[in-house]
């Protein structure tokens, strides 16, 4: 079955650099409780997870207690600090997705408390529910059938029916191949994994998520390239792969992540998608971003620049452990609220001040790392403008990677971005790899399948037929 996009983006939603700023999106999203994302205010989005503990029948009541404790602390702190509203994200774990009734119970605990705070104290909040993409629990994964998919969809449905406001996922279609591409720094395979496998899987998956959202009144948020470009980010930070490769991969994920919006998602896009600014530029959707406040989860070279055009500001995820002040999710709520306050206060004085703040955030990071450089608002607009000219996601992915290389090379020449000496040759290696990719997707698949380990993934799950003899 062909899962066709319900809309395409032929031109930029944001046409001027002066309109590309935090807090304001061309297509704001209004929630049932009246909160508007992308309508002028940056909201904190806090995400929390469990401390080290096993999840099974014997511990599930403790799991519920942990979530209950976390949400109480978060909402209390948000109330004490006069937050204009707050978004709570629950990223369900494999166990609490594979057993939809557990995931549902957690969502119920969170939502009930959030409703209580709204009724008692007027604190508005939204819950983003992100089930785990458990399809990859089985290797090679079944992407379009089987028990794992059924559990995941059931979790979405149950949580949405109870009132989860925003639905999101970190989908993994194509990751089977992309992981291998990353450790080998093979941009050809990465482009295939993203522009063909990732896009096809997201079309399938997001047609279902959007349907659930429409049926239940939830908001179809967005997907992220967490399993892709964030893995590249993590490997680059450990010195395993060049940062320039991670930067190119970040831009190459854009057509894949955009698929959610082509299938009908409306945003807010999910926090760990550092490619979010491209989504906002192209689709005009509000985005959640994470940066320095996600230091609890991972290192990144984009701590400030990530905030430039955000509409929600997140901490990625923090485990429920006690710090000197309070449990970590509470402490991170406080940090997010203060960051948002500052951004909102600057914007309240007029657009010019918001733009000044945006530019400070950008300038403080952009020159120090190519991964930050490709998130500079003017660079985002420049690349996005070229990407919307391409109708085919595979060609767009190839083009995105090539544009990223060109932009980084130009930035180096102009002294705008620092690239480590031993990384420079990798830009040429990546360029020559891209040049070898044919424009014909079928031809590329035919060429590539001889090099791939087809025991690690199932081409038929992506509507691909194996045609080449090894």
């Amino acid at each position: 079955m062909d899962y066709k996009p319900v809309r395409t983006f032929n031109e930029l939603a944001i046409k001027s650099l002066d309109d590309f700023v935090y807090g304001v999106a061309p297509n704001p999203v209004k929630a049932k409780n009246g909160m508007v994302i992308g309508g002028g205010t940056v909201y904190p989005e806090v995400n929390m997870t469990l401390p080290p503990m096993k999840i099974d029948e014997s511990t599930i009541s403790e799991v519920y207690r942990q979530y209950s404790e976390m949400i109480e602390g978060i909402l209390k702190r948000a109330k004490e600090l006069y937050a204009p509203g707050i978004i709570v994200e629950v990223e369900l774990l494999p166990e609490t997705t594979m057993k939809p009734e557990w995931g549902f119970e957690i969502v119920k605990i969170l939502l009930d408390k959030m409703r209580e705070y709204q009724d008692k104290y007027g604190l508005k909040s939204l819950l983003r529910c992100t089930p785990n993409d458990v399809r990859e629990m089985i290797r090679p994964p079944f992407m379009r059938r089987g028990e794992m998919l059924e559990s995941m969809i059931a979790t979405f449905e149950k949580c949405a029916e109870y009132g989860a406001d925003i639905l999101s996922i970190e989908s993994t279609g194509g990751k089977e191949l992309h992981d291998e591409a990353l450790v080998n720094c093979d941009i050809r395979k990465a482009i295939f994994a993203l522009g063909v496998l990732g896009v096809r899987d997201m079309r399938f998956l997001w047609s279902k998520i959007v349907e659930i959202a429409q049926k239940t009144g939830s908001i179809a948020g967005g997907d992220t390239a967490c399993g892709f470009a964030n893995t590249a980010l993590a490997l680059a930070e450990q010195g395993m792969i060049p940062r320039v490769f991670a930067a190119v991969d970040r831009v190459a994920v854009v057509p894949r992540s955009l698929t959610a919006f082509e299938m009908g998602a409306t945003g807010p896009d999910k926090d760990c998608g550092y490619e979010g600014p491209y989504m906002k530029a192209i689709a005009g959707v509000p985005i959640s971003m994470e940066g320095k406040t996600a230091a609890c989860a991972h290192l990144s070279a984009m701590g400030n620049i990530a905030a430039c055009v955000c509409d929600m500001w997140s901490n990625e995820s923090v485990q429920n452990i006690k710090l000197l002040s309070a449990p970590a999710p509470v402490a991170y709520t406080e940090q997010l609220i203060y960051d948002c306050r500052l951004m909102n206060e600057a914007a309240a004085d007029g657009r010019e001040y918001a733009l000044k703040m945006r530019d400070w955030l950008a300038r403080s990071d952009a020159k120090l790392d190519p991964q930050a450089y490709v998130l500079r608002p003017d660079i985002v607009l420049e690349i996005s403008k070229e990407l919307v000219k391409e109708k085919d996601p595979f060609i767009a992915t190839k083009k995105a990677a090539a544009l990223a290389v060109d932009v980084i090379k130009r930035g180096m020449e102009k002294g705008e971005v620092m690239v480590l000496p031993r990384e420079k040759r990798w830009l040429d290696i990546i360029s020559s790899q891209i040049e070898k990719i044919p424009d014909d997707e079928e031809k590329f698949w035919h060429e590539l399948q001889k090099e791939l380990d087809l025991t690690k993934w199932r081409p038929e799950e992506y509507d691909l037929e194996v045609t080449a003899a090894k």
Partner: protein
Amino acid sequence: MATLEELAQAVVDGDETQVVELTKSLLGSGVNPQDIINKGLMAGIEKVGELFQKNEMFVPEVLMSAEALKAGMELVLKETQQGVEVTSKGTVVMGTVEGDLHDIGKNLVCMMLESNGFKVYDLGVDVKPEKFVEAAKQYNADIVGMSALLTTTMVNMKSTIDALAAAGMRDKVKVIVGGAPITQKFADEIGADGYAPDAAGAVDLCRRLAG
């Protein structure tokens, strides 16, 4: 005439064509095949290990070196037919623990161990304790390695260590652990023999434990 130092450097450079040419030349000149392996090919890969450890080489570069080494080895073994010893540095059984499906870090460790002369059996993801035990027995492992990325699955490492003990295997294998939420303290608490924060550290740790 080609030298063993040039061969070692070609391995470091990951230049497979050069490695094959130099190996052929050295064999043709009557250099002892055991020396070609130990002082040329293996010396090169040892250097690669050092550079990787110091963060001076990227993984794809190490993998290219490993491919070049393999090409050279195959040539020596083919030309000499027999009488050349290639010793493994040790056997490692590796897997992502039960309930966890994050495996790129574990895969990376497997690749780096293989590149550095270890025999590795990768059990994949969501590996139950009994599967670790069974594989450790079957492959006569020197080391069992476990990886976890979630705070809710790291606890399963202890179950595997307990299962190894229950099977009477604990004193026969060393256990190493790693993954984002893992610390040396946690490794000590669950009775693991070692912890490494990254792939380079894991190679070094395995060298020490298997040595």
